[in-house]
């Protein structure tokens, strides 16, 4: 890849018309990797997207799914990618700033729409995937922990291992 695209600095963008591909070199000190991922994802329905390192920069190659596209299409693609990249980088910052409000509204919206679970749903709920950590044996019955009444507990009685300890 090596041909420049009209109106875009050659040090940033190059095009390969034979391959129907265009590449952009991204400065990761300006655009975090998450922004590069985010922008890339919005193009995978139209392009094959490849990322690679090029010295200090990240090289993004958009290869049009239709290899016969012209320079104007590639120009539009990489221009749109650059805009999307900027939007993703800025969005990451403002989302962090406004995270509390966005999370509060999201929780209310989803929680309100879902409503409380029914008894059937609670019964069907699968708790097994996240074992309950109980190193002190708080969830164990007194008998399980120290033996039945009348049985003498050893002096160094320790809680019996929980199910999660065994898994």
């Amino acid at each position, binding site marked *: 890849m090596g041909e420049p695209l009209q109106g875009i600095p050659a040090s940033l963008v190059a095009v390969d018309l034979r*391959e129907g591909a265009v590449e952009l070199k991204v400065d990761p000190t300006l655009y975090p*990797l998450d922004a590069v*991922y985010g922008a*890339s*994802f919005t193009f*995978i329905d139209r392009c*094959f*997207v*490849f*990322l*690679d*390192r090029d010295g200090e920069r*990240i090289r993004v190659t958009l*290869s049009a*799914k239709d*290899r016969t596209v012209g320079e104007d299409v590639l120009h539009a693609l990489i221009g749109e990618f650059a805009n999307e990249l900027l939007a993703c980088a800025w969005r990451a910052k403002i989302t962090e700033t406004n995270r509390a409000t966005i999370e509060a509204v999201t929780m209310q919206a989803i929680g309100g729409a879902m409503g409380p679970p029914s008894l059937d749903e609670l019964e069907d709920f699968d708790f097994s995937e996240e074992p309950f950590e109980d190193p002190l044996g708080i969830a164990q019955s007194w008998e399980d922990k120290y033996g039945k009444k009348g049985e003498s507990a050893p002096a160094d009685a320790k809680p019996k291992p929980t199910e999660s300890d065994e898994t």
Partner: protein
Amino acid sequence: MRELRFDKTLYEGTQVDAALEVFGRYGTFERAEEADAWIVRIESGSKARERRLAGEIGNYALGLTMKSRRGASS
């Protein structure tokens, strides 16, 4: 033959493997490892077919890597 390079800081090896598994029946792959990248050489009959297969594998590996990293950071 078409060569794909997956930089280790940008792609996760397990996700590249997963992508190759998904598309395994469409071509033959030769894998190699360099210090900073996984290399995949693809053969699939014709140049057009290899281009498409390489692209689909690239997109798939990228999508899986993003999903995996997002899960890890949340």
